[in-house]
Every structure is written in C-alpha cells, then in structure tokens.
C-alpha cells in the first residue's frame, strides 16, 4: 500500500494537505477540534471527510444560529464558517460570536469560507470579524495552510 505522502505527491497535492497536522515545536501530530458550518450537504460532507481524514475532530452546524449556539457550549480550535446560509448568515454568526467574546475576553479562530469572491466580499468577512478568508471552490492545500495559520495565531487557551 502506498503511503499518503506518495499518493499526495503523485496527485499533485501537497502532502500536508491530507496528513495529520503536526505541531512544529514539538514535532507531534496536533489534532484540532473544528466546527464546520455549512448548509450545502455535499460541501459539509467534503469538509468533514477531509478534516477527519487529517486526524482532526469535527462537529457540524447547518446554520449561523446553530453555530452560535454550539460555540457557546463547546470549546473549538477553529470554526469554518460558510457565509451564505438561510436564516442567520455566516457574517451575522461571526458578529454574534465576536460580540460575546468581547465580554469574555476570548478569541476563537474563525475562517470565512465562501463562494462570494467578488471585490469587497473578503473585506466584508474581515469586517465581520473573520480571521481568514477562504474562497470557494476550496483548494484543500489552501484550506490546510489557513487552518495551520489561524490555529497558530489564535491557540485555544488550555482548559482550566
């Protein structure tokens, strides 16, 4: 059986894209608790599959409101937030989360994942409080790179 590295190489995907993430400092695989917020089932399933195959633990939400409720009760390292969703949009959900955080003094790493890619769309995401912006169609290599970046920049505080 080919190892992942070979497969990834032969397919032109950076090995790190699908390899369990490693903490550079300690050289051991880091696993994150990631919340995938996405209303389109095939997209949600894709992200869950990619992230679990990479060794992370994943929870899902299909609307902004569901996401806001979940992050209130569960600790996450990263939230992948779709923007266009029925009911509460991703941007509104990010704003709601950031508003609450401003009282708590915490900061959750949030990546806006969206098919809104015209000029101004990224700015809107940042203005709402996203830490990173990932345009659709999602490139899995970019996804992993961004996850590492935001997880490094905003590490989850150790459980007290």
């Amino acid at each position: 059986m080919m190892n992942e590295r070979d497969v990834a190489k032969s397919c032109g995907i950076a090995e790190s894209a699908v390899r369990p993430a490693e903490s550079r400092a300690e050289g051991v695989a880091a696993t994150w608790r990631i919340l995938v917020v996405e209303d389109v089932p095939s997209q949600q399933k894709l992200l869950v599959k990619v992230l679990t195959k990479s060794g992370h633990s994943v929870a899902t939400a299909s609307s902004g409101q569901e996401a806001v409720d979940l992050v209130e009760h569960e600790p996450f390292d990263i939230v992948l937030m779709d923007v266009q969703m029925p009911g509460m949009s991703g941007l509104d959900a990010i704003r709601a989360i950031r508003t609450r955080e401003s009282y708590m003094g915490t900061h959750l790493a949030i990546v806006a994942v969206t098919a809104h890619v015209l000029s101004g769309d990224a700015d809107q995401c940042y203005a709402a409080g996203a830490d990173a912006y990932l345009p659709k169609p999602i490139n899995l290599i970019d996804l992993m790179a961004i996850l590492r970046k935001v997880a490094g920049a905003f590490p989850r505080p150790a459980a007290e």
Partner: protein
Amino acid sequence: MTDERNPDRTPDVETPDAGGGAILIVDDRPDKLVALKAALGSVDHEIILAGSGPEALRWLLRRDFAVVLLDVNMPVMDGFETARLIRQRRRNQHTPLIFITSYGDDVHAIEGYSLGAVDFLSAPVVPAVLRSKVEVFLELHRRNLQVREHADRLMQQTRRLQALNRASLEIHAALSIAQTLQVVADSAREILGARQACVIVTADQHGMAQHELVISPVGRVSTRAGARSGFDLPGVVAQFAGRPHPAADELASANLGPFWTGDFAATSRGLAAPLIGRGGNTIGVLLASGRREGEYTADEEALFVQLAQMAASSVENTLFAEAREANRVKDEFLATLSHELRTPLSSILGWAQLLKTKMLDEDETREALEIIERNGQMQCKLIEDLLDVSRIVTGKMQLNLRPISLVALTEAAVNVMLPSAQARQVQIETTLDPRVDRFVGDPDRLQQVLWNLLTNAVKFSAPGGRVEVSLELDDSQVVIKVCDHGEGIAAEFLPHVFDRFRQADSSASRKHGGLGIGLAIVRHVVELHGGSVRAESEGAGRGTTIAITLPLPADMLRKAPEDPGEEPIVTNIGRPSDGVPLIGVQDEVVG
C-alpha cells in the same frame, strides 16, 4: 339658459356687443320709442326698442345692455314692476336703469330709487340731457367691461399657472416616463384648450434607449410595430423640434400612427417645443394642435415651452435612475451568478481532489462520484438557463413546433418533479381537462416552462405542503395553472417576478438559491407561443399561483364532450407514503 355660477364663462360668449354696449329703450307707445331713439341719434351705439316690460325682460335674458331707459307708465307691467323683475336676475343687478316719468312726483322717485334706478328723466325729455346722461353710463359700461376683461385675463393666467404647478407636482410624483409624459401632454392640452397634444421621446442615454409616444387624450401608444404602422418618432422629432409654430395641417399629418389626428379644423397654428437634455441634445418634442378660435398668446406659448422643459428634465432623471437600477440589478446578478456557479464547483473540485488521494473507501468513492455528477448536472442546468437568457436578450430563441399532447406533457413534467417533491414531502395534485389535450407547440420548451414552475412551487412550499397543477379550457384558450400554498410573493415584488435577474431576496441569508431567471424564461417561452403568463399571490406567506394562458387554434378544439367519461381527471400523485425511499435530492435545490 345662462348659468351665473359658472366662473369659467366669459362674458363674450353671451354679449356680442360687449365692446360697445347697447341701449335698451322700453315704452308702450311706439311714437315715444321713436322719439327717444331720435333723441339719442348721434350716440354711436346699438339701440334696441322694446314695446313692453315682458319684451324688455326677454331682451335682457338674451344680452347685456349698457343702460336701460324705462318708461314708468306702461299697461300690464309698469316700469317699476319691470325694474323689480330685472333686479331679481343677478346678472342685471347692476344694469343702470333710467326711469322716464311724466309725473315728476317724489313718491314715484322714491319708489324708483328703492328699485335701484340710477336716474330719473321727466318727459318730455330734453335730447341733450338724455344724451349726456346716457353717455355717462355708456362710458361707465365700457370701463366696467375693461376691468372685467382684465380680471378675466388675470384669472385665466392664474388658472394656467395653477395647472402648470399641478403638472409639476404630478411630474415629480410620476413613477415612470410614460406617466410623466401623460401628465405633460394632458397639462399642455388643458392649459391651451387644444384638441390634441402629444409628447414624443426618443432618448438614448446612459445605455437606456427609450422611445415613447403619449397622446392626450388617448394615452400611451405602443409604437413597437413601428415602421409598418406609420410611426416615425425620430422623424417627427426632427421635423418639429426647430419649428415652434407649425401649421395645423402639417401637424395633423405627422407620422404618429392612427391615434394622432391633430386638428385639421384648427384655424390657428399649432405649437411645438423640443425636449432638450442637459447636454443640449434633443430628446423629444411636445406638440399641440392649433386652436379653433384665436392664435395662441405669448403667455400660453411660454407655459408650453416650460412644460416641455419640465418633461425633458424629468425624462432624463428617470432614465438615469433606470440605468442605475438596471446596473444594480446586473451587478447583483453577476454576484449571484458567481456564487451559484462556484458552489457546485467547490463540491466537484473538492471531492475530486479527495478522490485523488485514494483515501476514500469503496462506499465513500461511490458517494464522491455521485456528488460530483449531481453538482456537474446542476452547473449544466445553470449554464443552460444562462444560454436561454442570452437567447432571450438577443431574440434568438426559436420554437420547434410540433403537435403535442398537453396532458402527457404535464404528466411527464410532474413525474420528473416527483422525487424532489417527495424529498420535501410536498404533494403534487393534478387536474387535467382532456379537452385541451391537443396543441401545437415546442414540447421541450413547454416542458421547461412546467419544470421551472413546478421547481419553484416545490421550492417555496413548506414540508407537507401541496402543489396543484391544472390544465383547463377557458373559451378558446388553454389555461395551465401551478398553484402552491407556500411562501407567496410580497405585493411590491409581484410586478417584478417575471423580470430577468430579479430575486425577491438576494441577501446572504436568503433561503433559496437560483439565478432569478426561471420565470423570465417561462414568460418568454409562453409569449413566443402567443400566450401570456401572470402571477397571483395574496402576499408573503399566502401561496402563489402562476397561470399560463395559451391560445388554442380553433381546429384544435375537440367537440364538447357528451359522454361523462370525459370529465376532468383528478389524480393524486406524489403523496409521500410509508416505505417509499426518498431520493437524495434534498441536497441542492434543482433550480
């Protein structure tokens, strides 16, 4: 009968002698009448003789007099009685009355003054005295007339300014160019008292071309059939824009179609004023037919020109606003399009990338391929719709007409929709009248129309909802209705549902995807078949009915059914039943 209460009436209408003022002499004795007339001989005024009080009253009904000489002593109705009756008529309340009396006694004089006499003359009358007294009243009458004329002119001018003011307010309130032009044409006609007025706009600005013809009192005239039916709007604009006073017959024969008749019988020249845009370019012309009495005054012409200017600036503003709105809708559409194309693409590329890593097991691989295929089909449908819109815009959509069965077509469309309807637990009920089965149309396009309508109906229905599809005969027309009890359409959006690129909700939190072109395609295809389509909804949350009407050629109409076997067939399909596997299309909405 005259009507004193009507302030619009000008005195000229009733009193052809208004300028001079006539003298009425009333006496029962012909010799005295002749003598009095002779005494006034040198006075240059018309003199009317009346032999009795009643005759005098009849004259006064017919016309105005500058002064009335009234004999006191007459049989049947004496001078005082006549005066009383004269005074009862409001119009004659101030007509100067001079009594001629042979008694010269005070009692009579007091009675006479109490009846409003202005003077007394004793018979026999001294001609010089009579003349000088009469002349005073003639002069007074002339002055009165002048004042009245002046007041009338002022009143007329005030009325015109009021009309202009009203027009300006209405123009500001007008929501469309056609509405603006209607106000302008109506106001021009009203202010001038012309038989017909019209506004022509041939503007091509900000990428918005607008050719409009509005005739007062006809209304907006569709010039789409243009060349064939004798409309030449640009030609007419060029013909009259530089000529403020066109001849009546030239105006009447302008190429403005059958509704513009101008006024061949007009005796005065008409008026024409160009609509000048901000850049100094001519964007149209305002025309008014000539009048049947008198030329237009400079005042009237000035108001007319002002109306044309108001029309020009309003048209430009509206065009600018429309261009901006069209741009906004287009931008919004492009953003939606980009989003709608990327969403399935993201699934396709992501799953393909994942497949390449070979980390998926057999079941996962099959699922990945299914997802890729389904999203590919979604994109394909989007692109097809886009191409259709492009065909609509360029007028290149063509029908492939064939004899078809509407019943079979409708049933087929419903069957295609069943899986997604069942997935959303929406029931589809059909009522198909077999009498309207045979039809000539493009089966693929009509199928597309039904799919689009059914897709919307299912998409906007709540789970457990019901969609009704019916095929009916109405006169010699086929009526296809798709009715749901779902989200409905807000009244303010209802007029726009068939506009391409328009969506009721294009926000980031909208519930439904789609490009907003499905119904635009429906309308175009139906119109290509010579039919029409309309949307009805009692408002948000109260369901929607889309009704398509298609003209049925006479020979397509089957004989009225005599056997009861031809009753409309009612079937219930699509009711989710236990154990029916729901096909997994709840993923992405088909539209």
